[in-house]
């Protein structure tokens, strides 16, 4: 029997579980003499236990249900291979059905309702209501189940058929059975035409020693089909940018390759934290792009040409900075009718004023107090004095690496991150007429009340008049713990996250706003971490000591995925994530509301993924 973990070891184990996808692969050894300049000893981690830490092993030793998870995963893979690899393989599918098969509900409901039709795209789902009835058990039930599997195989199978699934909970039942909650997404043909989203509860026959457990029973909780005769998007990257001679070097290589081949002095990292800004830089009425790049590569300014391709003018415009740049804004800071540029580098900002023709002069460095890693930038006129102020999210108390300035402590509600700053634009009242009143920014973070809860690992912010009182409130998305929701009252801010219903603990990375339900107020979608491994372990109440319930819930919340908060109309929010069905991103960075199909209901796009290494082993 597993012993309950001490409260102290929980964060450690949680971290390891989140990283369970990692593996310790080594590069292939070759016997021929390698074409290397010099051989080096393999670097070793310097941690106290780091040298002997086998992440996968320690995770599994602490969490035996992870073995059950791996086993169920094998069996589900078998089932989907039988369904989707060429013709239906009935005998292979039959191997995942238990001797003591007790019955399954139909995989597909008899009737589906069209819930959305837009152009040639159609969404059909089963009506909510009673649980799908279970079929019979025994041989007859097995045959009936295999017939349904075969029917789905015919519907979805083929060259590009694919099934993705996640097991989000594992609960041992008795000595011979365990229950799982499984999310399945199956699609036939590349990019459509048919997609099915399914939610199953599966009880398996099998002990941890059984590598291929078998299905004892299966309950369909949800079924949905989407038919899309053509993909929503056509990628035109090469068409628009591909002609630039620098394009392959600067944009087709991954950040890790760029990092290993750049001067460390360039302040580069392999994390890929480089963003972009959209704005009309040359005043021709068309939006252009400013692209931040890692240290040692120049940032790029792509102007949209009449033919839809881009020209690149960063060098000529004076903004081809080589510093490791993270975020940028194109906004009119001096109210002269053109788009000025703000770029974050390390703990600093640089502001360039547009000369009206797309060139930038009068570069002004802005160096707030303290050393800490700036991530996202936003601009808003918080004090309604007619010019735009700048808010910078600063992550950790250092300028380099992932966590160069210290590790988040405690993991689930860290309070040792960087200091965010609100920089008030004092350009208009500047005494120096020679500067045309430009470049005067005052750090007003403390005086306006934003020092409250201001040592989080902040990644993004968004300004919005959530409480509809005529001024802009500020939401800040924080990694490793709670977010900030600063209510603006005449230019003074108070963090009311808890009272506003936004007090959840999570690893937040982005925030986006829209009136998604068209009720007239603005709602909030947060991109967080979704971890099925985290969900699996944090949901196991008996594995946590009873005095540790709060922490367990914190970890559960950390793994739950994205949040959708519906505005109650007064700046307080209700968590509607589950009924909306939008929790699953994955390692979700800044999601964005965007109306894909002009139906006036804003849709969501979610960029995902943390670190992909050359090793193929993954969840």
């Amino acid at each position: 029997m597993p012993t309950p973990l001490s409260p102290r070891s929980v964060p450690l184990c949680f971290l390891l579980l989140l990283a369970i996808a990692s593996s310790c692969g080594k590069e292939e050894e070759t016997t021929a003499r390698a074409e290397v300049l010099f051989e080096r000893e393999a670097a070793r981690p310097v941690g106290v236990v780091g040298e002997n830490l086998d992440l996968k092993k320690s995770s599994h030793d602490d969490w035996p249900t992870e073995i059950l998870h791996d086993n169920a995963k094998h069996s589900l893979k078998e089932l989907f291979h039988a369904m989707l690899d060429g013709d239906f393989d009935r005998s292979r599918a039959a191997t995942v059905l238990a001797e003591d098969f007790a019955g399954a509900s139909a995989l597909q409901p008899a009737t589906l309702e069209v819930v959305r039709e837009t152009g040639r795209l159609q969404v059909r789902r089963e009506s909510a209501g009673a649980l799908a009835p279970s079929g019979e058990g025994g041989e007859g039930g097995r045959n009936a189940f295999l017939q349904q599997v075969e029917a789905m195989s015919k519907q979805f199978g083929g060259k590009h058929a694919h099934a993705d699934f996640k097991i989000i909970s594992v609960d041992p039942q008795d000595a011979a059975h365990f229950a799982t909650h499984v999310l399945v997404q199956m699609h036939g043909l590349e990019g459509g035409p048919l997609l099915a989203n399914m939610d199953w509860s599966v009880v398996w026959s099998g002990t941890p020693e059984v590598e291929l457990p078998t299905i004892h029973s299966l309950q369909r909780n949800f079924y949905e089909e989407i038919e899309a005769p053509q993909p929503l998007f056509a990628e035109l990257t090469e068409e628009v940018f591909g002609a630039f001679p620098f394009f392959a070097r600067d944009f087709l290589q991954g950040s890790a390759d760029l990092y290993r081949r750049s001067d460390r002095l360039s302040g580069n990292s392999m994390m890929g934290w480089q963003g972009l800004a959209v704005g009309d830089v040359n005043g021709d009425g068309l939006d252009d792009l400013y692209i931040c790049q890692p240290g040692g590569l120049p940032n790029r300014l792509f102007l949209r040409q009449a033919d839809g391709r881009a020209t690149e003018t960063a060098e000529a415009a004076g903004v081809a900075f080589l510093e490791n740049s993270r975020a940028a804004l194109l906004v009119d800071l001096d109210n002269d009718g053109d788009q000025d540029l703000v770029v974050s580098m390390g703990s600093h900002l640089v502001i360039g004023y547009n000369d009206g023709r797309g060139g930038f002069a009068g570069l002004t460095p802005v160096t707030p107090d303290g050393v800490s890693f700036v991530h996202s930038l936003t601009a808003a006129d918080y004090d309604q004095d007619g010019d735009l102020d700048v808010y910078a999210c600063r992550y950790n108390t250092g300028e380099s690496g992932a966590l160069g300035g210290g590790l988040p402590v405690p993991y689930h509600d860290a309070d040792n991150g960087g200091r965010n700053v609100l920089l008030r634009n004092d350009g208009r009242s500047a005494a120096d007429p020679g500067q045309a009143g430009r470049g005067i920014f005052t750090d007003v973070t403390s005086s306006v009340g934003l020092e409250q809860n201001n040592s989080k690992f902040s990644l993004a912010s968004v300004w919005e008049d959530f409480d509809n009182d005529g001024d802009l409130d500020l939401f800040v998305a924080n990694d490793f713990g709670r977010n900030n929701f600063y209510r603006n009252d005449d230019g003074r801010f108070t963090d009311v996250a808890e009272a506003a219903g936004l007090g959840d603990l999570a690893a937040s990375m982005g925030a986006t706003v829209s009136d998604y339900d068209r009720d007239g107020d603005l709602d909030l979608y947060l991109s967080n971490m979704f971890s099925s491994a985290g969900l699996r372990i944090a949901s196991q109440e008996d594995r946590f000591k009873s005095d540790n319930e709060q922490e367990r819930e914190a970890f559960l919340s950390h793994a739950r995925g994205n949040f959708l908060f519906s505005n109650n109309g007064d700046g307080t929010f209700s968590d509607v994530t589950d009924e909306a069905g939008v929790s699953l991103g994955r390692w979700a960075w800044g999601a964005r509301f965007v109306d894909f199909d002009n139906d006036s209901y804003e849709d969501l796009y979610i960029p995902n993924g943390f670190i992909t290494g050359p090793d193929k082993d993954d969840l």
Partner: protein
Amino acid sequence: MTSQSPESETAAEADEYLAAWEALSHLIMEEGGSWSGREKNCAYLNLGNGRFANVSPTTSADYPDDARAVAVLDWDQDGRLDLVLKNRTGPRLRLLHNRSTDNNPWLRLRLRGTGASNRDAIGSLVTLTLADGKRLVQSVHGGDGYLSQSTKTLHFGLGDGSEIQGLQVRWPDGQVEEFPLPDTRKQWLLVQGSGVLSEQARPALARFAGLDPSPASLQVESSHRIVLADRLPMAEVPLPAYENAARKVGDLSGGPVLINMWGTWCVGCQKELAEFKQSAAELSAAGLRIIAISNDEADQQDLAQKRITTFGLQDAAGPATAEYLKVLALLYDELLGANAPSVLPTSLLLDDRGQLCVIYQGPVEPAQLLSDVAALRRAPATARFTGTLQEGRWLSVRVRDFAGLANGLRQAGLNDLAAYYTTFAERDAERHREAAGG
């Protein structure tokens, strides 16, 4: 509400936590591990009833990239919102053209604040009232999402075409203004206080709709040209020679130098050397001297010396000694980090003062060398920076960790070199003091 960290209560627990992070970091940075890798981007379709459907695979935008940021704009002005993605993995930039098959009307509104409102009208709230009494609400943002700023032009999808019955703007300064009703499928400029709409003609790029997808794909380059952010002095670094065992880099004064590391078993190296030979006249005219250092074992150096003669580079050539390689490895650690690949051939381009400016990993074309030598000549003699060698410019002073380098050399028993680099640490400390004073 700040809670003391329970994990930091004892040093042992804090150490354990730190060690776990370090082990993870090591796994990812140095052993090629993944952490939430190959996770696909997601797309949800809003069903209009408070629910969403996960339609990711039908968008073809469900890339397994390590995505980071997404920005939204109508790149081709066809009335559908497009996406630009920034990724960690290659390709690191993607542009996705929206090909929705809907025929829903839309409206684009560009706002301009006046008076006590900011000109970009960031913070404005626009309300469209539709015939069915429903309202559409959008606001202007200056950045949102993560590391991203999307277009400030408001884009309203209008659904199945319910007629617009009202257009109201609440400007950033609080003024509320009603505007005339706009025609759909057009872009309009709304200037605060004007009370009128002016059309901004933005014809759609017709050709975009018919373009076949042209996706970017990951590219792994076999040759790399690494321009250093600051020249690295190497004058005191030993440079082994067949004829003069005590030679140092600084003995090669009087012009730019290319130190080329090669081996007799390395096919790519000899192909490169053959190209150098073909372009020997041009390279020599440009004043570039090529010093070939063979990485062969000691018992192969006779062969290496003979072979290098066939390329006409025998005069200043030499064998890579153990000490030379040890020094190079330590310099590499400082310049590129301990995990930088070390390949053959590798060439080092030094200026006429023995300062390293460019590292070429893999073969380098003679044309590139000629261009780089010319760029070096154009650079001011006093410049610390190799700005002419690449596009772009540094805004900040980059200060190399010469003290750390000296320390590493000292630990390796290379005391003379350690002393040499210590002088640069002192020089930089002086620079810092000057910078702080000025």
